[in-house]
C-alpha cells in the first residue's frame, strides 16, 4: 500500500541527493523519509475520518443519547466507545463532566467516557497503524474501550458521589434527563467540509513537529541500540516491569505523537509490547495537569481513587497484552 512512498524515498535519497545505496546514513535517511511520510498520510486519513464522524455526532448528541436510553449495563461500553470518536481536549474535561452529571448520567458512566476519550483518540490510532500495524492497533483500541468500561463500572460500584465538590453535588441533586437542543445539526456535507478540513489541518500542524522529532529520535536509537538490548532487563517473565512502566508514565505528560515513535523502537529492541502499551496508556491516559483541572469538581480523594482504579486496570491490560502477544 505504501510502496509508492518507498519509491519516492528511494528516489530522493539515491537519485536527488545522490547518496551511496549501502551507506549507513543513506539508509537511515531513507527510513526516516519513508516512515514520516507514511505516518503523516495515515494520520491525515484517520483524523479526517474522525472529524467527519464527530461533525455528525457532537458531544451534545452523545450526552443526550446516554441520558435518554436505558441500556441495562451496556451504558459503560457505549460511553467508552463514544470516547473513541470524540476528540478530547483536557481543558474541556470539566464542562463535559458537569454536562454529563447534569444530564442525569451516572458517575461511573461519565468516568468511562473520561477515561477512554484521551486514551484512544484519532492521533493515537493513526500513529499506531503506521508504527505497529493494523492488528496491534485493533487490539489497542479494543483494550482501551474495555479499560474505560471496566474502570467506569468499578468506580460506579464504589459509590463516590459524596466525594464531589459541593457545587457539583448541587448540580447532581438537580440533575434531570433533559434533552438539550443544539445548533448546526442540519448542515449538508459540503457545508461541513470546510470546518472539518480546518480542524484537520490545525490538529496536524500541532502534532507534526512532535511526530517528526519522535521519528528522528526513534531512527537514531534504531541505529545505536543493539538488537534485543532490553530483553535482559525487561522480559515478559519480569513481573515488575508492567507496574513500573505504568507508574513511571503517570508524571510524564506528553502527547502520544512524540512518544509513540520512540516506544516503537523500544519494542523492536526487545521490550514486550504489553509493557510498552501500559507505559503508553499511562502517559496519555493519566496526566497530572488533567488531575489538577478535575480538582474543581472532585475532592483530592476522589481523584486519587479515580487514578488508582485506572492505573490498576492499565497494569492488568499490560499483563494481558504480554500474555496474548
Amino acid at each position, binding site marked *: 500500500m505504501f510502496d509508492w512512498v518507498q519509491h519516492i524515498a528511494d528516489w530522493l535519497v539515491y537519485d536527488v541527493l545522490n547518496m551511496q545505496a549501502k551507506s549507513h546514513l543513506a539508509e537511515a535517511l531513507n527510513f526516516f523519509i519513508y516512515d514520516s511520510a507514511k505516518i503523516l498520510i495515515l494520520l491525515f486519513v484517520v483524523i479526517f475520518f474522525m472529524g467527519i464522524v464527530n461533525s455528525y455526532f457532537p458531544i451534545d448528541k452523545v450526552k443526550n443519547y446516554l441520558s435518554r436510553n436505558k441500556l441495562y449495563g451496556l451504558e459503560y461500553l457505549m460511553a467508552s466507545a463514544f470516547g473513541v470518536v470524540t476528540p478530547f481536549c483536557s481543558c474541556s474535561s*470539566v464542562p*463535559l463532566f458537569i454536562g454529563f452529571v447534569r444530564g442525569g448520567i451516572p458517575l461511573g458512566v461519565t468516568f468511562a467516557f473520561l477515561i477512554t476519550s484521551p486514551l484512544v483518540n484519532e492521533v493515537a490510532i493513526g500513529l499506531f497503524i503506521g508504527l505497529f500495524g493494523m492488528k496491534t492497533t485493533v487490539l489497542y483500541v479494543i483494550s482501551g474501550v474495555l479499560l474505560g468500561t471496566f474502570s467506569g463500572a468499578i468506580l460506579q460500584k464504589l459509590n463516590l458521589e459524596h466525594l464531589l465538590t459541593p457545587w457539583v453535588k448541587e448540580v447532581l441533586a438537580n440533575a434531570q434527563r433533559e434533552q438539550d437542543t443544539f445548533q448546526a445539526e442540519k448542515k449538508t456535507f459540503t457545508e461541513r467540509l470546510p470546518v472539518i478540513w480546518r480542524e484537520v489541518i490545525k490538529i496536524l500542524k500541532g502534532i507534526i513537529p512532535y511526530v517528526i522529532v519522535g521519528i528522528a529520535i526513534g531512527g537514531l536509537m534504531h541505529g545505536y541500540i543493539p538488537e534485543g538490548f532490553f530483553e535482559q532487563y525487561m522480559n515478559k517473565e519480569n513481573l515488575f516491569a508492567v507496574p513500573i512502566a505504568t507508574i513511571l508514565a503517570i508524571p510524564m505528560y506528553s502527547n502520544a505523537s512524540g512518544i509513540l515513535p520512540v516506544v516503537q523502537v523500544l519494542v523492536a529492541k526487545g521490550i514486550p509490547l504489553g509493557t510498552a502499551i501500559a507505559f503508553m496508556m499511562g502517559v496519555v491516559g493519566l496526566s497530572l495537569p488533567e488531575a489538577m483541572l478535575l480538582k474543581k469538581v472532585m475532592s483530592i480523594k476522589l481523584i486519587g481513587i479515580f487514578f488508582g482504579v485506572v492505573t490498576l486496570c492499565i497494569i492488568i491490560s499490560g499483563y494481558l497484552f504480554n500474555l496474548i502477544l
Partner: protein
Amino acid sequence: MAINNLNTMTKIIKILGTGCQKCKSMTGVVKDVIRENNIDATIEKVEDIIEIMKYNVMSTPALVVNEEIVLKGRVPTKAEVLDFLKN
C-alpha cells in the same frame, strides 16, 4: 430606522473558557474582527467554571453574542465571527 438601531447597538460578546490555548486563540480572532470592522462591542472573558456551566456548554471555548451561544468547541475564522456579529 428600527432595524438600523438594532444593528448599531453595542454587542455584548462573551468568551467562555477556562483559559486554554483554544480560548486564547478565539479571543484573539474576535478582537481582530472587532477592530478591523469597527464593530461596537464589548468582550468579556468568562473563566469561572460555575459561570460557564450556566450556559450549559460541554465543550470550550464557546462564543456568546448577546447571551446567545453561537459557537462552541472550536476556534472560528474571522469570516465566521463577522457573520455572527452582523446578524
